């Protein structure tokens, strides 16, 4: 088996509260910068995670447990304070729906812009364009500005661009809850198809039944620490029990 994602002992601290006052900052400076000026907390604490190619992993945990932060480290948006993250092949993240979308551009322009942001070349986008709008069911609205789209259309287009990047590793954060029933089914089918093709998935969702259907493995995070790593059903049971 080849490793797709290798997270080794990463920790990440965030600042809880910035410098309280100029006076405190001044005293801190005079005292030779001893200690920390601002309060910090661990958003991730000594997290290890090895994901093999083709594995489907759900990250579970309550709000603020560090799931999004961990995904951001895997995608390279954030750099750990200590430890190391390494990935193999192209990683595409749907960290938030349509992060790279611009409201004043047409659907078409957004497909190109977002596709390029997610690492596609011009030729790849040209080639997959038809397939992207077909999957998104955008049809004649493709040349309409995105700000006039319904939130469902917006989501569909964003999702469609992301799945068409053909990533080896696909990161999905809390997006499956949006969209109407039929499209949600279609997204899930697409994600399962990606998994069947042997792509690696890391999914964050609050819908435990849903992730249990998509993923085989569950990793539970609690206050930045991995408290469980194993089969998805045990992970879900653990979270429900807790």
């Amino acid at each position, binding site marked *: 088996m080849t*490793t797709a994602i*290798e997270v080794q002992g990463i920790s990440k601290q*965030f600042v809880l509260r910035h410098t309280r006052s100029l006076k405190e900052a001044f005293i801190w400076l005079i005292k030779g910068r001893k200690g920390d000026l601002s309060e910090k907390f661990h958003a991730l604490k000594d997290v290890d995670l090895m994901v093999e190619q083709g594995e489907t992993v759900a990250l579970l945990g309550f709000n603020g447990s560090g799931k999004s932060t961990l995904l*951001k480290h*895997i*995608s*390279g*948006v*954030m*750099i750990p304070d200590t430890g*190391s*993250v*390494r*990935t*193999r*092949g192209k*990683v595409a*993240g749907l*960290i*938030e729906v349509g*992060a*790279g979308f*611009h409201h*004043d*551009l047409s659907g078409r*322009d957004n497909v*190109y*812009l977002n596709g*390029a*942001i*997610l690492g596609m*070349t*011009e030729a790849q986008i040209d080639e997959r364009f038809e397939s992207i709008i077909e999957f998104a069911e955008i049809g004649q609205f493709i040349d309409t500005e995105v700000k006039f789209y319904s939130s469902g259309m917006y989501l569909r287009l964003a999702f469609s661009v992301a799945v068409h990047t053909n990533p080896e590793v696909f990161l999905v954060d809390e997006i499956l809850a949006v969209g109407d029933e039929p499209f949600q089914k279609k997204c899930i089918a697409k994600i399962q198809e990606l998994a069947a093709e042997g792509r690696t998935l890391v999914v964050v969702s609050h819908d435990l039944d849903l992730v249990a259907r998509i993923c085989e493995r569950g990793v539970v995070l609690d206050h930045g620490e991995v408290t469980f790593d194993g089969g998805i059903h045990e992970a879900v049971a653990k979270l429900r029990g807790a």
Partner: protein
Amino acid sequence: MKTKLLESTKDDLVRPGTSGGLADVYRERFLLKLLVRKELKVRYRGSVLGIIWSYVKPGVQFVVFYLALGVFLGMEQSSTNKGGLANYAIYLFSGIILINFFTEALGNASRSIVGNGGLIKKIYLPRQLFPVASVWVSAVHFFPQLLILVVACLFSGWHPSLLQLLAAVAGFVIVALLSTGLGLLFGAANVYFRDSENFVDMLLMIATWASPVMYSWTMVQHKLGEMWYSIYQVNPITIAVETFHYAFWLPTTDGSAGIPPHLLSLWIPVGLVVSAAVLLWGQLTFRRLEGRFAQEL
């Protein structure tokens, strides 16, 4: 380690989020193109005149300055005002378009990282793209103005030499390098201290007056003396403005006004070196700071 380098292929385990600096910008030139296009489209959305605004604004600015400085304050040479500058309108405009380029490029580049924070926080992409795209957009706005200048020059009997045109290209390169370098520097600093964009605004106000856009370099030399004048000359913007005077204004006059001594042999190379050094500095600072962009934004 050595074998690792040799075996390094596309399919190796790699550290995500490792920046290759400006080389990444070149690699992602398609994305750069789209970002520039987006900026141009979004800038003029819902406006009737659209990109014509980038002609109207400098046009109005020019008329105001010309009347106030050229006519009222007597910078323009005429039969009653022998001490003025011949063809002051062209003198003024050739400097203004370069300063406009610098102002827009640096102003927007300094805001570009914070302005694209939503994206930077969520998706990894080479962040240098944003300041570079800002400079590029400003260059797109610069060229129509240059066109107007050239037309005005042609009406005034412009006959430039190849050397003069090359000097203008060097002047443009100096400003482009300088604004990219400072844009990277202040764009990164702005993430941590929002004071930085206000500081840039102040800097830009000074830039207009700290180079011979509205007045002549000889006035500075007379007032400051040689030593201070040399310091004044080191400013890359001053050098760039002088190259534009040399290329566009001088060939429309009888050439008696002359250009600052050693402009070609000394000051253009100095300007290029200073701007390149600023670019290097900006790039190094940016790379040192960018690792924490996502969490600070």
